[in-house]
């Protein structure tokens, strides 16, 4: 892993007798998109709140770029940007007025502030509507301003707390593209979600959180690989004998096989072994392969496997 920009050690948070976070440790690399995936109430927002200095941990420590958050709160906060789950904006003010206000809060002023606000408005695609009251915007537009307000001061780490809740597919896609663009520009992103597709698409690594603990942490592919299995879709040329399907079905690693026109679908618990066996058979039977697609199981099934429950339960 590249040099870590954020290190959390044994983070704990209790509210009375309720232990919301029970010893979370993680390291986020500079330039990484790091996902916190878990169902509602898993402790993601509490973790984010501690990482951004909003909540003081009951135990544990947080270091950002070598600075202890507790001792250097102001300096560390200046390096962070938070896009909260709520639309944390003043709805009677325009997008420009909101951005100007949050820019000033982060110490921008004068021409530099105005220029940066224009850049961010351009980035979130709201230059034309910049002077309309935020309350008059669509849900997606509000979400974009919400993200824009977290970017004004060019943070080194951007925290996005469930940024796509209640957003239409088009705006969701726009948010994904924004996150990808920011990350390409070098920004470290910590992204919480309970949508596994988002984590799978955006995150370099994902920590699966449940009941205040990280129960798995790896790349999305690594997490899925740890579960094993998958589906192989094998395209075969016209005239391929039916015997191929029967032989593949007899391979020990294959659970189920079926053929539909020119495609053989192989379901397996041991993907590599099943794939190698099927390719060996096609060689031996002199079958021409027209396409090969490997479908791995997703994070939803990983979560199901790890916790016995679904992400959106």
């Amino acid at each position, binding site marked *: 892993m590249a040099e870590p920009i954020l290190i959390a050690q044994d983070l704990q948070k209790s509210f009375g007798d309720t232990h919301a976070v029970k010893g979370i440790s993680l390291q986020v690399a500079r330039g990484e998109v790091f996902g916190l995936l878990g169902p509602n109430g898993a402790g993601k927002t509490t973790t984010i*709140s501690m990482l951004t*200095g909003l909540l003081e941990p009951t135990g544990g420590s947080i270091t950002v770029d070598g600075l202890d958050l507790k001792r250097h709160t102001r*300096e560390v906060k200046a390096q962070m940007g*938070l896009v909260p789950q*709520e639309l944390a904006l003043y709805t009677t*003010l325009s997008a420009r007025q909101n951005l100007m206000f949050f820019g000033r*809060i*982060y110490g921008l002023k004068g021409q530099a502030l105005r220029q940066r606000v224009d850049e961010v408005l351009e980035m979130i695609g709201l230059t034309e509507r910049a002077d309309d009251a935020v309350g008059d915007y669509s849900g997606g537009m509000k979400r974009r301003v919400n993200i824009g307000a977290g970017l004004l001061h060019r943070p080194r780490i951007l925290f996005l707390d469930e940024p796509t809740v209640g957003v239409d597919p088009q705006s969701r896609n726009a948010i994904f593209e924004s996150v990808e663009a920011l990350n390409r520009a070098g920004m470290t992103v910590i992204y919480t979600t309970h949508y596994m597709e988002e984590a799978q698409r955006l995150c370099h690594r994902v920590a699966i959180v449940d009941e205040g603990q990280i129960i798995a942490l790896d790349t999305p592919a690594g997490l899925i690989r740890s579960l094993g299995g998958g589906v192989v879709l094998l395209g075969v040329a016209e005239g391929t004998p039916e015997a191929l399907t029967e032989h593949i079905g007899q391979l020990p690693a294959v659970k189920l096989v079926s053929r539909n026109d020119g495609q053989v679908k192989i379901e397996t618990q041991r993907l590599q072994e099943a794939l190698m066996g099927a390719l060996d058979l096609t060689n031996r039977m002199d079958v021409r392969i027209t396409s090969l697609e490997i479908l791995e199981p997703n994070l939803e099934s990983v979560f199901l496997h790890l916790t016995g429950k679904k992400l959106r339960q």
Partner: protein
Amino acid sequence: MNALTIALKDLRLLLRDRGQIVMLFLLPLGFILVFSAVYAAGQQMEAQAIEVPVVDLDRGGAMATLLLATLNDGRGIRTLDYDQAEAQARLADESVKLVLTIPAGFSADIAGGKRATLRLAYGPAASDSEIEAVRLVVEGVAADLSLETQLVEGLSQMGAMMGDAPEAVRTFTAQRIRAQARGQFERAKTAPLVSLAARWPDQVMEGREEFEPATFGAAGFAVMFAFLSAQVTASSIFDEKKEGTFRRLLASPVAKWELLAGKMAPNFVVALLQMVIVVGASLVLLPLTGQTPPSLGHSPLGLALIAVLVALCSTSLGVLLGALCRTESQVGGVSSLFLWVAGMVGGAFIPAFILGDFLNTIGKAVPHYWALQAFNDLTIRGLGVADILPQLGILACFAAVFMAMGLVKFRFD
């Protein structure tokens, strides 16, 4: 700097909220215009209605005649002549509420420099406000009579001395004449020749001042609505928490004290502006509606100190309400109810001396009462800053207590 940025943002938000502007600035003016007219009408009706039976045992005496003529001279009471037996009987059967008795030898006693006592008897049917009104008028007239008589007596003595010893004229300089007049004036105040004997409830004694509807209305509603602006702060804190902007601000490099100061400053400014605008507009608008403008006394510094302390109290109260209110209904309903009730028992709607013992005692537990007492001391009683220091101190204590409680209870997360 961050506190200023937050405060300016809050003021901008407030200016966009027409409902709040109406509540904070126009509503108090409306209240003043309406209530001042009602108070004035009530005062006039009361004046027309009070008939005072008088038993004149000094019948034909010059001073008694002068007293009765002065009492009937547009002072809001009308005397009715009764003999003693009839007056006692009617007081007993409650067909009259109060009786003023001028003692026998009243005129002769005063002329001879002796003290005389008028007696005011009242029955159970007499209301506090009637007793108070009659008492104020009779005491005022009696004080004038005392002063006039004692001045005349003093100057007469000087005249006699000058007549007996013309060479002494040189010694009666203007300075000595003024000193003599001043001495008589002081004696008339501390040992008046004419006094009024009556047993009065304590709270009536406190309400010694002349009631000025416009002054009372302007002060009462300016203070009342300045405290209502505390609700704006509470509501603003609640909204920011609900909308998540508080969270966003706390995630920024803004210190908690800056955030709180930024939330408080607009309340302070708005409360101050409210008082200036409400009282200023009353000065302009009340005469346009045929009413008397409020009087402002002679101590601008005193008024400024009251305004600053009321604004400070209101701001601290806003933080306390913001800390205590957990739901929208608490912010909108409960705090509103508390502030209106506090204003009422504090004497913002009805003068404290009319509220009665019980409410008057409760009223002392709210800052409105002390603010209005200080205001009335300056404007109606004509006192100065030094005289209202106790009330200012109590207001400062309220502000400190509200702030301390608010900070202890305040939750940033």
